[in-house]
């Protein structure tokens, strides 16, 4: 048992190392200094308190979008629509943030709730169609991504503002920014959202693993027939799963709207937070803790990558390294296989 746990821990670490080694080989192959490259990557992500702040800021929405994808996955649904849910959540949060003037104790929760609700609605649609009409959620969520993008742009321009490119900044009473945190991290964009993200992860873990609702959701994900037989309402659970997943997506948007940016501009394309959430969720094995760790890895690499040109290495290389790490983590089976072979040889 304990050696099993050890291997479970070892596999992702080896995958990570293999990915980095592959990256190093590519760097050397193209005549870059791999040591300098990795040093720049490290410094860009953790070099000092400022960069750590930035990295945390980047991790925050990834946790939410990763949870969104993972939550749906655990109930047997593939939510490619987190991107759209991020956008509507962002919009709703900012809208509430600029439209009202309320004490923080009311305003901030209201704005956050608005984002969650908007995302939830965006998840409700594919959930409903799946439950009632058995329409495949993958298509509906892809279509809703585009729909969200265009509607949000329209609303920013024509409803929230009068032909403006971006909304006003939200009132400080709705902001996740904290003066203290900013000063502490030497004016990084880190905000209080990370706390919400960690709470959300704990919530997901608790809800799925420890509650009767979670028991139902997972059962429906594994076997709808048996769930129905056991008296669970399959349709309701499918909708609920998509609604909660969507709410997580919406909250990822709130992190951008109320934390990182404080406004919403007309988007010329997708934010990619939702799409990256797919990778984060799967890297994290669709568990809450896994998502937090994977978001950490993903966020660090993304922020660190911005610093790589300092060592003359193009940022694009980081995309390659990220991809390779994902490959290696996904292929954990083969690493396990090697490990168990090595162990057996040792035993003999």
């Amino acid at each position: 048992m304990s050696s099993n746990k050890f291997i479970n821990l070892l596999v992702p670490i080896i995958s990570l190392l293999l990915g980095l080694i592959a990256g190093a080989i590519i760097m050397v192959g193209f005549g870059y200094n791999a040591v300098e490259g990795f040093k720049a990557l490290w410094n860009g992500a953790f070099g000092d308190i400022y960069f750590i702040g930035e990295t945390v800021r980047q991790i925050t929405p990834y946790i939410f979008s990763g949870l969104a994808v993972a939550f749906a996955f655990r109930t047997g649904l593939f939510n490619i629509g987190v991107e759209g849910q991020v956008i509507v959540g962002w919009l709703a949060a900012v809208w509430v943030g600029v439209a009202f003037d309320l004490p923080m104790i009311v305003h901030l929760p209201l704005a956050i709730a608005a984002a969650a609700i908007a995302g939830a609605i965006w998840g409700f649609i594919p959930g409903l169609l799946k439950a009632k009409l058995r329409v495949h959620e993958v298509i509906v969520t892809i279509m809703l991504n585009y729909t969200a993008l265009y509607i949000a742009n329209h609303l920013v321009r024509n409803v929230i503002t009068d032909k403006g490119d971006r909304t006003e900044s939200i009132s400080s009473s709705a902001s996740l920014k904290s003066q203290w945190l900013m000063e502490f991290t030497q004016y990084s964009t880190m905000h209080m959202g990370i706390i919400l993200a960690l709470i959300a992860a704990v919530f997901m873990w608790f809800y799925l693993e420890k509650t009767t609702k979670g028991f139902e959701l997972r059962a429906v994900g594994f076997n709808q027939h048996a769930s129905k037989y056991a008296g669970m309402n399959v349709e309701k659970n499918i909708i609920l799963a998509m609604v909660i997943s969507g709410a997580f997506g919406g909250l990822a948007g709130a992190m951008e709207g109320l934390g990182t940016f404080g406004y919403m501009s007309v988007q010329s394309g997708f934010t990619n937070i939702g799409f990256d959430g797919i990778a984060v969720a799967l890297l994290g094995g669709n568990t809450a803790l896994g998502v937090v760790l994977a978001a950490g890895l993903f966020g660090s690499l993304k922020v660190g990558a911005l610093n790589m040109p300092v060592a003359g290495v193009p940022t694009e290389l980081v995309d390659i390294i990220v991809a390779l790490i994902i490959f290696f983590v996904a292929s954990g089976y083969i690493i396990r296989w090697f490990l168990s072979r090595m162990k057996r040889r040792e035993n003999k």
Partner: protein
Amino acid sequence: MEYVIEMLNIRKEFPGIVANDNITLQVKEGEIHALLGENGAGKSTLMNVLFGLYQPEKGEIRVRGKKVKITDPNVANDLGIGMVHQHFMLVDTLTVTENIILGSEPKKYRLSIDMKKAEEDVRKISEQYGLKVDPAAKISDISVGMQQRVEILKTLYRGADILIFDEPTAVLTPQEIQELIEIMHNLVREGKSIILITHKLKEIMEVADRCTVIRRGRGIKTLNIAETNPNELASLMVGREVSFKTEKEPAKPQDTILSIKDLVVKDARKVDMVRGLNLDVKAGEIVGIAGVDGNGQTELIEAIAGLRPVESGTILLNGKDITDLPPRKVTEAGVGHIPQDRQKFGLVLDYPIGENMVLQTYYKQPFSKRGVLNFKNIYDKAKSLIKEYDVRTPSEFTRARSLSGGNQQKAIIGREVDRSPDLLIAAQPTRGLDVGAIEFIHTKLIEERDKGRAVLLLSFELDEIMNVSDRIAVMYEGQIVAIVKPEDTTEEELGLLMAGSKKQKVGES
């Protein structure tokens, strides 16, 4: 060259278990050789070794006297070995013909499949061996019995002359079993040799020439059928005496628990399957439903359990209307249900067996409180059920998937019986089980009856129906056409009633 197949001292290990431990099996040319053993004794494993799906750790295989190494099913096919697997290896979405020719398709213009020729070929062998099938039908649209014929045709199409049947009769109705036995005789007449795995001693006695008994992975004995009897076989296999006729006191029926009036239920294709059915089941009795598969039994049971909408009519439980209530409400009203398809309905295979034990009760105290699960109580409960019902599993945390079908079945029965429902519906509760397990389950059902519960038993085994029921309701074309007492009838009479030939009304007893 007496033996077509010789498996000598075969050993096959799985992580943590020796499935085959030095087993020897010798099959003579042209015989039907039965392989007998408890659930999990290692029969399927041995056959999978012969068919090339598993590689043995030790041992030697000879085919027609020649030593061979069967590295994969292709090699087995080339050696003329064909296998009808315990769980059918059929592609649901393909047609009968497509399934049969898959892998060795007749070609037209060197590129495309010559479907005409294929269907012709299929028709030819199907006629030659008396295996009637509709070559153009989709697998998902045909009956289990028909599917099995397709499996047999697959092996014959490839020219197999050594056929392995792994529990072919577990899923068949008595009629289909008779047909299969006929088919096996045909095959042997055509010069084929057959290895037959079955838990039904009667069948072994009827068709087999010799029988090899294995227990817990070890070969026990090979006997000539002519020189043995079911009792000997059973005790060799289980290691103790087994009684075939379950002892029971006469029933003491009390109030009516289940009362069905003019029930009409449609199947998925919107065809009426239950057509104005009436039935009462009383507390303290076991009512067996006898009938040929496809006469609306499944629909009836699913309708009672709330899994299928009711078109018209009423279902009363303890006088309370439960017609069209959702499954949860039906369960709470006091119905327990051992479903026919245990893997599809009975279990969440990816959940630990322990959590499967509370599949309908997880939301109640003491398994949860205010929506939060109490795993200690859940697993405590599971542990005691596993013990009581002799579910063989490494632990209560093992995923249900890796239990054998028999043990999965015992787990479900334990779960349903333990809830002590007023009405227990048991649909084919012993399908695929060995005689020891069957004995155990029958005893449990009778115990429930004696506690004053009503039991509705659905089975295609007339043996079981005759053995366990207090009253037998014969179902034909969506209606109960007769109600008889087992002591007043014979299997022959039942068979006639089930075929709908003698439509007589037998008064309620």
